[in-house]
C-alpha cells in the first residue's frame, strides 16, 4: 500500500482572491486506503482548498492529479465524475425528495422517452444503502431522516461513482456519540475498498483515532505532513500556530473598572448551558471554541435576538431583560455580528447611512433627516477608525472587508455603548487590516469599553484578550487570564479533552 500510486495528489495549488493569497503553493498526496487529516486554524486555507478540489473554485496555479492523471474540474459534478467526492459540513440535500432521488440527483436513470426509470433507481440505491448498513430505504423522504442519516445519504452519493477520494469536512460536528461510531465504521469500510480519504476536523481525539497521516496548513501554505502514530498534540499545535507569535500580548496595560456586564447561570435550550462570566470596564474577554460551541448564540442572547431559558443578565449590577435588539441598544449593548455582509451592513446603502442607521431617528430637524449631523458623525469615525473610502457616498458593498468592518464598529461606537460584542472581528479580512482591527479593540478597551471578542483564531484571541473563556459544546470549560494561558491548554479545553479526562 505504501508504494501504491496516490489516489489524489496536489501540486503547488495557488488560489488568490482580491487582496488575499488564500492558497500559496499547497502540495500533498493521499494514498488509496489512507485516512489523511487536513488541519489548520480557521482561515488557514482548508475550505478554499476543498472548494478547489470539489470543482467550486478554479485554482490560479498548480495541478490536481487523480490516479496519475491530471484533471481539471469546472463543476462539482465534474469533480464527482473524476472520482473526488465532497461530504459537506452543511448538508446539501433536497429535503422533499426521496433518498434515491437525492443520491442520483442530476443523473437519474431514464428510459428513451426521458421518463425516470424508478425501479432501476430504487434497486441501485438500495444496493448502496445495504453496503452502508443503514436503517432506511431508497424511498424514504430525506426530510424525515436524522442529521446523521442525512449524512449517510451524502456518503451514499459518494459511492455511486468509483470514488477515488472522499473528503469529509467536520463530519462529526452535529453527530451524537452513537452516530459517530456508525460513521467511523463507514469510513473504515471505504478505506478497505482502497478509497483515499481526506478528513478535516479540529477534534484531536478523532484525528488520533481515525487518521493515518496529518497535513497541516497555515496562512494558505503547506506546513508539513506528520505520521499520526508518531505524533503528539504538541507537534500538531506547533505546526498549526507556527512560530511564537510576536503579537502575543500577555501584559495588562491598564486598570479595569467595575463589572459592566455579569452573566449568571445563563442557559438557552440545547444551545448552551449554565454560562457564567463577567466583563469589567476596560476589559476584553475573549470567547474561544470550535464552530458550534455556542459562543455566537450567547452573543445573540445578550443582544436580544434569542431568549434565554434560564439565568440572569446584569448590567452595571442591575438585572436587565433584553427582549429585542431595540432593548439591547437602549441599554448600551452593541453587537458587531459574525457575518458582516449578511447581518451587519446594508450593502446597497452608502457608508454614511450605514453608520448612522441605529440613530438616524435622533438626527432630524422637523420631518427631515439632518444631512450635516450625519456627515459630521461619519467624518468623526472615519478619522478615528481610519476608514479608507473616497467619500461617504461610496456604497458599503464596494469597500474592502477591513473598511466594512470599521463601518460596523463605527456604527456602534457612535451610539456610545457600555458593552461592545465583536463576533469574529477579522473574518475574511486581510492580514494588514487584521492588526489594525486588533489595535482598535485594544484602544477601545483602554478607553473603558467593556468588550467581548468571539473568535475562532487562536492568535487573535491570545492577542486581544485580557481573559479567555474556553467553550466546548455549549459549556464553559475553563476561564484563563492572559498571564496563565498557554496554547496547549487552550486547545485542550476547546477540544473537550478536559471533559473526557474527567469522565475517565
Amino acid at each position: 500500500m505504501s508504494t501504491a500510486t496516490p489516489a489524489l495528489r496536489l501540486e503547488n495549488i495557488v488560489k488568490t482572491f482580491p487582496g488575499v493569497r488564500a492558497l500559496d503553493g499547497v502540495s500533498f498526496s493521499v494514498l488509496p486506503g489512507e485516512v489523511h487529516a487536513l488541519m489548520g486554524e480557521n482561515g488557514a486555507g482548508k475550505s478554499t482548498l476543498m472548494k478547489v478540489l470539489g470543482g467550486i473554485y478554479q485554482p490560479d496555479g498548480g495541478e490536481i492529479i487523480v490516479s496519475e492523471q491530471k484533471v481539471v474540474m469546472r463543476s462539482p459534478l465534474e469533480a464527482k465524475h473524476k472520482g473526488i467526492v465532497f461530504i459537506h459540513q452543511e448538508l446539501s440535500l433536497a429535503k422533499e425528495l426521496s433518498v434515491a432521488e437525492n443520491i442520483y440527483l442530476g443523473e437519474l436513470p431514464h428510459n428513451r422517452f426521458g421518463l425516470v426509470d424508478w425501479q432501476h433507481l430504487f434497486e441501485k440505491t438500495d444496493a448502496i444503502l445495504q453496503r452502508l448498513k443503514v436503517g432506511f430505504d431508497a424511498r424514504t423522504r430525506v426530510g424525515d431522516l436524522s442529521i446523521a442519516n442525512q449524512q449517510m445519504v451524502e456518503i451514499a452519493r459518494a459511492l455511486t461513482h468509483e470514488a477515488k477520494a472522499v473528503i469529509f469536512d467536520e463530519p462529526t460536528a452535529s453527530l451524537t456519540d452513537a452516530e459517530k461510531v456508525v460513521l467511523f465504521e463507514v469510513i473504515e469500510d471505504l478505506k478497505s475498498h482502497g478509497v483515499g480519504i481526506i478528513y478535516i476536523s479540529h477534534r484531536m481525539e478523532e484525528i488520533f483515532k481515525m487518521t493515518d497521516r496529518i497535513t497541516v496548513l497555515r496562512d494558505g501554505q503547506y506546513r508539513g505532513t506528520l505520521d499520526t502514530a508518531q505524533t503528539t498534540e504538541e507537534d500538531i499545535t506547533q505546526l498549526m500556530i507556527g512560530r511564537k507569535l510576536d503579537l502575543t500580548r500577555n501584559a495588562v496595560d491598564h486598570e479595569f473598572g467595575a463589572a459592566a456586564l455579569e452573566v449568571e447561570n445563563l442557559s438557552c435550550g440545547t444551545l448552551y448551558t449554565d454560562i457564567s462570566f463577567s466583563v469589567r470596564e476596560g476589559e476584553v474577554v475573549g470567547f474561544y471554541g470550535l464552530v458550534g460551541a455556542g459562543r455566537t448564540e450567547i452573543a445573540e442572547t445578550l443582544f436580544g435576538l434569542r431568549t434565554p431559558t434560564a439565568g440572569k443578565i446584569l448590567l452595571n449590577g442591575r438585572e436587565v431583560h433584553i427582549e429585542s435588539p431595540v432593548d439591547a441598544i437602549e441599554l448600551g449593548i452593541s453587537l458587531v455580528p459574525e457575518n458582516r455582509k449578511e447581518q451587519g451592513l446594508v450593502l446597497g446603502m452608502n457608508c454614511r447611512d450605514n453608520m448612522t442607521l441605529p440613530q438616524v431617528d435622533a438626527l432630524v430637524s422637523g420631518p427631515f433627516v439632518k444631512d450635516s449631523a450625519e456627515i459630521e458623525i461619519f467624518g468623526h469615525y472615519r478619522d478615528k477608525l481610519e476608514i479608507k473610502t473616497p467619500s461617504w457616498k461610496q456604497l458599503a458593498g464596494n469597500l474592502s472587508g477591513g473598511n466594512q468592518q470599521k463601518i460596523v464598529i463605527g456604527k456602534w461606537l457612535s451610539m456610545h455603548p457600555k458593552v461592545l460584542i465583536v463576533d469574529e472581528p477579522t473574518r475574511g479580512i486581510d492580514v494588514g487590516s487584521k492588526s489594525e482591527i486588533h489595535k482598535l479593540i485594544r484602544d477601545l478597551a483602554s478607553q473603558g469599553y467593556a468588550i467581548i471578542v468571539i473568535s475562532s483564531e487562536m492568535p487573535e484571541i491570545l492577542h486581544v484578550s485580557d481573559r479567555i473563556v474556553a467553550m466546548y459544546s455549549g459549556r464553559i470549560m475553563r476561564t484563563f487570564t492572559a498571564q496563565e494561558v498557554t496554547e496547549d491548554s487552550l486547545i485542550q479545553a476547546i477540544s473537550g479533552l478536559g471533559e473526557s479526562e474527567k469522565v475517565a
Partner: protein
Amino acid sequence: MTSETKTRLFKQGAIWGFIAFELIFFSVAGSYFSLSKGAFMDADNMLLLFKQSAPIGIIALGMTIVMINGNIDLSVGATYALSAIVLLDSMTWPIFAGLGDWVIPISWALALLTGAVLGAVNGLIVWKTGVDAFIVTLGSMLGYRGLVFMYNGEDPTSHLNWTLVDFAEAQFLGLHTATWFLLGVAVILWLLMNRTVHGRNAYAIGDNREAAVNAGIRVGPHMLLNFVLIGFLAALSAVVFYSESGSVNPNDGSLFELWAITAVVLGGTKLAGGSGSIISTLGGVIAIQLLRKGLGYIGAGTETVNLVIGLILVAVLFLDRQLNVKAKGELKV
C-alpha cells in the same frame, strides 16, 4: 469602480432614454402611418397623456415604496374600486343631504379613509403573521373585490356632482387636476423616501432585513406605514378619477396592480427590495402611457399594446440582469 458608477448612471437614465426613443420613433413612424393629421408630440396630446397616466401613476408611486421595503401589494385595484364606491355613494347618503357641495370634502375624506384602512389591514396581517406580502395581498385582492360586489351586485354605482366634475376637468398652468395630484404625490413621496427616517429605514429593511433588525430598527411599523400609504394612494387615485367620471363598475381597477408593478419594474425598482426610485417610476408610468398612445397613433390595435409592453418588460429585465452580472462578476446560473 468607475464602470460600476457608469452602470448605475446608465440604469437611472435608461428609462428616460427609452421615453426619448419612444417619442422619436412614434413621431417618425407616425409621419408614415398615422391616420390623424396632428403631430404626435403635440402639446395638448402630451398634457392629456399626463392626465391619463395619473390613476395608475399614483398607485405605481405607492407601489414603489412598498416594493423598496421588500413587499408587494396586489390588492390596490380592489381598494381603488371600493374607495370609488364609497366616494360616489356617500354623496347620496341622506345624513349629508343638507350640506350641498360641502359633502365633497366629506366624501373625499371617507374614500381616502377607506383606502387607508384597507391598506392598514394588509399591513397588520403582514406584520403580525409574518406571512409573505404576496400571499396576504393576493387574499385581500379577492376579499376586497368581494366587498365591491357585495355592495351593489353587478350594477354600477353612479353619482355625478358637477362642481366636482368642474374641479376635475380644470387646468392650472396648463396641467390638469389629475396631473397636479400625480406630481404632488411624486414630490411628497420623493421627500419621504429620500429625506426622512422612514424612507431611510424602508430602504434598509428592503435591502437587508437582518442588518436592519440588528441596527435596532422596528421593521413592522415601517411596513405597516407603507401599506397604509399605498392604500391611501389607491383611494386618492380613485378620488381623482371618479370625481370626473361619476360612475364605477364593480370590475373597475382590475389588473391595476399589474400595470402599477410593470411601471415600477420598468423604472428599475428591484422586486427583491432595497433599491428603487420614485422619479424612475414616474418615468415608467409615462413610458407605458406613451406606448399605448403611440401604438394607437400609428394605427396599431389596442390588442397589440399588451403584447408589446409584455415583450419590452421581459427585454428590460433581461438587460438589467446582464448589467448586474457584469457589474458584480456574479456566477452564471
